[in-house]
């Protein structure tokens, strides 16, 4: 009896705890229902496409679908010796090549093998043309068409491609290639993908540092000026932010190209010989300058919002206790701006790593970043490889995004 008396109840006799839980559950559901339409929309138009892209990065049935006889043979003989495939394997290959010629799938199948064993397309085309007229023994006949049909690397590649699902594109995207002995790292000159990843990260880091160096004094000035003046100067920061990216890129081309404003001005002033015009556009310099300009507001705004709330009395206290102005800055002011530095740097770095438009337009040959390589492979219809590189970039971005959320918190993002 004593227990029953202790349970608090609502006016209609339900236990208070249960009633509260029910009410909270209702409130939760109601809040969630408000978000649900957008969540579904984002799921369908954003998440599913990205998931589909990730699937494409591990799936390519170009060979598996057009070479049924070989697929069957590989299934039955998973432990065959790629250095010396038996006659039946060659028979299956010849049968498939003839079929490819009939169904016009040589290109698709050859392209698939070509990713891991370069040069396969032309070999497949040659083989397919001759396949119908070949007589047994097929091994000798096919090797007579092209001796490369006996290469262990090719047989490894075909065995791997006989499965539509593969991690090969990730291996290719990390500069591995299929040799006669199996997957191995390419030579120094062949390491294009990882090199470009490294270059993209280095350039992004460089741009982040330049942005920080440029943003720090400006944000400090804005934070310490009286409100009315700061608001006026803030417009100078926000206007580039609101101006079309293409407009800003165009502006930099006009300014920096060989016949551009800056070069014309320098030549006009006699500082530069007409033949000695500086090439500041369509190379790495162009990419770095234009991207710094584009990303600078993303550094200034978070720095400013942190600096604005730093009380000036701390610096005055340090000075009155005998610190020099440098010590005051280094020991008192700078540590308080660290949250802003972290927020701005991470944001700029994240945005820089995935940048596409500016390098594509002003980068020339050596100013291209990893995004441009993805676009290149898309334009060459190397979809799975493009998807694999994009997936690697996505993984890097998601890690950075996670760090950003841990350190800064995404709900701290603000504009203006």
């Amino acid at each position, binding site marked *: 009896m004593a227990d029953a008396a202790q349970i608090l109840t609502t006016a209609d006799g339900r236990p208070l705890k249960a009633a509260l839980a029910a009410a909270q559950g209702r409130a939760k559901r109601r809040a969630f229902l408000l978000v649900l339409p957008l969540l579904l929309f984002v799921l369908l138009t954003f998440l599913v496409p990205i*998931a589909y892209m990730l699937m494409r990065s591990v799936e390519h049935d170009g060979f598996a679908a057009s070479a049924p006889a070989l697929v069957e043979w590989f299934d039955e003989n998973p432990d065959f010796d790629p250095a010396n495939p038996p006659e039946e394997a060659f028979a299956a290959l010849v049968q498939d090549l003839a079929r490819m010629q009939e169904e016009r799938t040589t290109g698709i199948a050859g392209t698939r093998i070509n990713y891991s064993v370069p040069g396969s397309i032309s070999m497949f085309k040659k083989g397919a043309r001759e396949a119908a007229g070949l007589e047994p023994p097929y091994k000798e006949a096919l090797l007579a068409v092209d001796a490369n049909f006996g290469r262990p690397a090719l047989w490894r590649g075909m065995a791997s491609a006989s499965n539509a699902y593969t991690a090969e594109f990730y291996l290719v995207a990390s500069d591995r290639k299929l040799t006669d002995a199996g997957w191995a790292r390419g030579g120094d000159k062949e390491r294009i993908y990882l090199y470009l990843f490294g270059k993209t990260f280095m350039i992004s880091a460089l741009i982040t540092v330049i942005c920080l160096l440029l943003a720090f004094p400006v944000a400090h000035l804005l934070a310490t000026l009286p409100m009315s003046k700061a608001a006026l100067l803030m417009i100078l920061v926000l206007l580039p932010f609101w101006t079309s990216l293409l407009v800003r890129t165009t502006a930099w081309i006009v300014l920096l190209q060989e016949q551009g404003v800056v070069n014309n001005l320098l030549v006009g002033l006699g500082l530069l010989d007409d033949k000695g015009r500086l090439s500041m556009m369509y190379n790495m310099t162009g990419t770095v300058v234009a991207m710094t300009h584009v990303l600078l507001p993303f550094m200034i705004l978070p720095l400013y919002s942190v600096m604005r709330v730093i009380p000036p009395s701390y610096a005055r206290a340090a000075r009155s206790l005998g610190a020099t102005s440098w010590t005051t800055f280094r020991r008192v002011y700078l540590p308080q701006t660290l949250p802003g530095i972290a927020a701005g740097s991470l944001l700029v770095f994240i945005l820089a790593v995935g940048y596409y438009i500016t390098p594509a337009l002003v980068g020339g040959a050596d100013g291209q970043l990893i995004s441009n390589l993805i676009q290149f492979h898309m334009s060459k219809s190397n979809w799975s490889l493009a998807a694999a590189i994009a997936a690697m970039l996505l993984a890097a971005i998601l890690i950075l995004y996670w760090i950003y959320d841990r350190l800064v918190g995404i709900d701290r993002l603000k504009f203006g």
Partner: protein
Amino acid sequence: MALPTYASPLERLWYYTYLTICVLIFLFLIAPILVVIPLSFNPDADFTLGAEFLDPATYSLRWYDTLLTLGHPATADAPRDDAWWSAVWERSTWVQAAKNSLWVGLWATILATTLGTIAALGLSRPEMPYRRLIMALLISPMIVPIIIIAVGMSFFYAKACVAPDSAMALIFGWMLSEKGCLANSHLGVIVAHAVLGIPFVIITVTATLSGFDQSLIRAAQSMGANPRTVFFKVIMPLILPGVISGALFAFVTSFDEVVAVLFIAGPDQQTIPRQMFNGIREAISPAILAVATILVVISVLLLATVEVLRRRSDRLRGVTGR
């Protein structure tokens, strides 16, 4: 930062150096944008900023005229009568691009703002479950590189088709491409741009709602207002400035977006940025600078609107000091 009276000469020197550096950085920010404006009135196709810019008599609207006449069938010196203007409206490449950009931008903005505002209302409630995770997901279109989004969309939207003669085709068919797919269609570009605009709507509206006094809702309810009245008479007027700035951000995002358009749009969805992108890739003509100047003017107007709205919103919420 005013200079304190006890500053040493060295500190004074450093202070003025610092001011000079700041001025230079501001110049770096703003000069490239301003430089396109006089160049767009330059009748010659070279990019020299010479003495003639001090003389307005040499200014010419030649490149603005090119914008109207590119893709226009009539000769350049044809009389500018009604027929000429209607041909401009129907045929001019840049006018078509502007129409497409506005149409796509408008619908993407409506879609992003409506869905985003409703979601922000839910996200701002303290009882919202998985708030952090959902927020991270909804902001991610801004963080994930546009090239990755565009690649994913170009794969998926080419497959996202409705069967001909099906019920879906009857409802959505007119907005899709001829094959009934999202790729190469206006709807495809609109939803892609809506997704890209959503983070901005979420960020601005939740920021406005963060200062929102929840007791106002209870006050309205206690006086007998139903949920609809509460939303339209109490919540909406207070968050409207945030919603409008979010909408403007979403519109600008769409109006400036080129990568997704390059990947998923067809020839019928030629937008201004796409036209500019192609123009810059080939040989940069001063006509591009004329477009750029128009876009700068538009962004100045948008920035002014957003600033006015932000101040109004701060005043309404009782945030002072800015």
